[in-house]
């Protein structure tokens, strides 16, 4: 059998392991076969079905995977999917922020649920658990460790008239995590977005996705007077016109 005959099936991942290894070995020394495989893969890419944009939480987890891999002091800021000016002077609800302080309950109750990202646990395939253990748990562990850090600031964001709440932990170095929450999942076209009230300005602190689990973000804790989550179109916005879903303001 000539190895060339296997190249079509190779490019479509349709070889058994032993034949795949055979082709791998051959490709390491044969330019023309490598070119043929490249051509087959370009064609295969054209056969791919219609794109389905993944929900925002996937980007959040990718950022989390990057963040977990990096040393803590290099923790990068959340990059919004669509780059926008992130700082602005005022919003409609900034004016209401002071008034809201009065009605927002403060608290530091730590409720460790096994839900959220743990919804993966309900689905029992070995791969899912393996991947979940690899991707999700380090983040959860990092967030839990942050929560236990004596220097952490813990903010419980609550709502005026719903049961929605979100717990956020922020470390002195600016590492932050959205931790437990009871937010209603949004449709794919929408996202929760986190804002910080700093020196009377509103700064976007991260696009959290439509069903946030544990989400890392970066926010210089100096001067943070409040944290607000709004509901926005997927990808997030530069300036929010939306009312807060949950909020926390420093006493």
């Amino acid at each position, binding site marked *: 059998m000539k190895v060339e*005959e*296997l*190249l*079509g*099936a190779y*490019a*479509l*991942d*349709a*070889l*058994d392991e032993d034949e795949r290894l055979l082709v791998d070995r051959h490709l390491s020394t044969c330019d023309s076969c*490598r070119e043929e495989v*490249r*051509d*087959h*893969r*370009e*064609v*295969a*890419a*054209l*056969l*791919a*079905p*219609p*794109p*389905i*944009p*993944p*929900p925002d*939480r*996937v*980007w959040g*987890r*990718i*950022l989390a*995977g*990057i963040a977990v*891999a990096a040393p803590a002091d290099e923790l*990068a800021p959340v*990059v*919004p*999917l*669509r*780059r926008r*000016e*992130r700082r602005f002077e005022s919003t409609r609800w900034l004016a209401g922020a002071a008034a809201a302080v009065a009605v927002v309950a403060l608290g530091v109750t730590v409720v460790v649920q096994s839900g959220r990202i743990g919804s*993966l646990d309900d*689905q029992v*395939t*070995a*791969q*899912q658990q393996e*991947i*979940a253990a690899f*991707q999700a748990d380090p983040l959860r562990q990092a967030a839990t460790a942050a929560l236990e850090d004596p220097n952490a600031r813990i903010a419980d964001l609550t709502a005026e008239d719903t049961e929605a709440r979100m717990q956020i932990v922020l470390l002195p170095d600016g590492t932050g995590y959205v931790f437990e929450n009871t937010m209603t999942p949004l449709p794919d076209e929408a996202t929760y977005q986190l804002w910080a009230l700093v020196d009377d300005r509103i700064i976007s602190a991260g696009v959290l996705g439509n069903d946030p689990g544990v989400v890392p973000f970066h926010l210089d804790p100096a001067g943070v007077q409040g944290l607000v989550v709004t509901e926005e179109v997927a990808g997030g916005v530069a300036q929010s016109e939306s009312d807060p879903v949950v909020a926390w303001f420093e006493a």
Partner: protein
Amino acid sequence: MGAQDWSNTEDAALAAAIGDASQEALAEVYNRHSGAVHGLARRILRDETLAEEITQEVFLRLWNNPNKFDAQRGSLRSFLLAHTHGRSVDLIRSESARRTREDNDARLATGAGQNIEDEVWSTALADQVREALSALGEGERRAIELAYFGGHTYREVADLLGEPEGTVKSRIRSGMKRLRQSLTAAGVTQA
């Protein structure tokens, strides 16, 4: 923010920037290709959770091993989709995904439901791809479908179709070559 505008940057340059740890370049690549990656994974796996895990893994791998992409050896899109396909197929070949796959097979083998031509999305490019597909023999097209979307080895495809392994193996290769010729003639791929 004084940030660079990546939206007009070519894929190869974005990949190079990812090699220099630019998260914004990764975000742009994700904007461009995550839909295709996720769509392909979901098509093969028929499971949203697994498809999301694959999508996440594909982009994390690009971030962690940007040097695996070689612009001389094809486009970033085909690189990402090849990885997506390989990992999706790994998963679907495992025991736990078997049931989903059997459902899949039933549709593919009987030709019921959507076939490959319906799946190709509706753009001018898609019309050309559809035309190229229609130029294939039935045997070639079916073999490519079962391998590409069903995640089958060519031996399994031979079993499913009741045809000799050697025939299926060469049909996959000749079908892929024929597709390429048609698409090159239509100006979609380069000779």
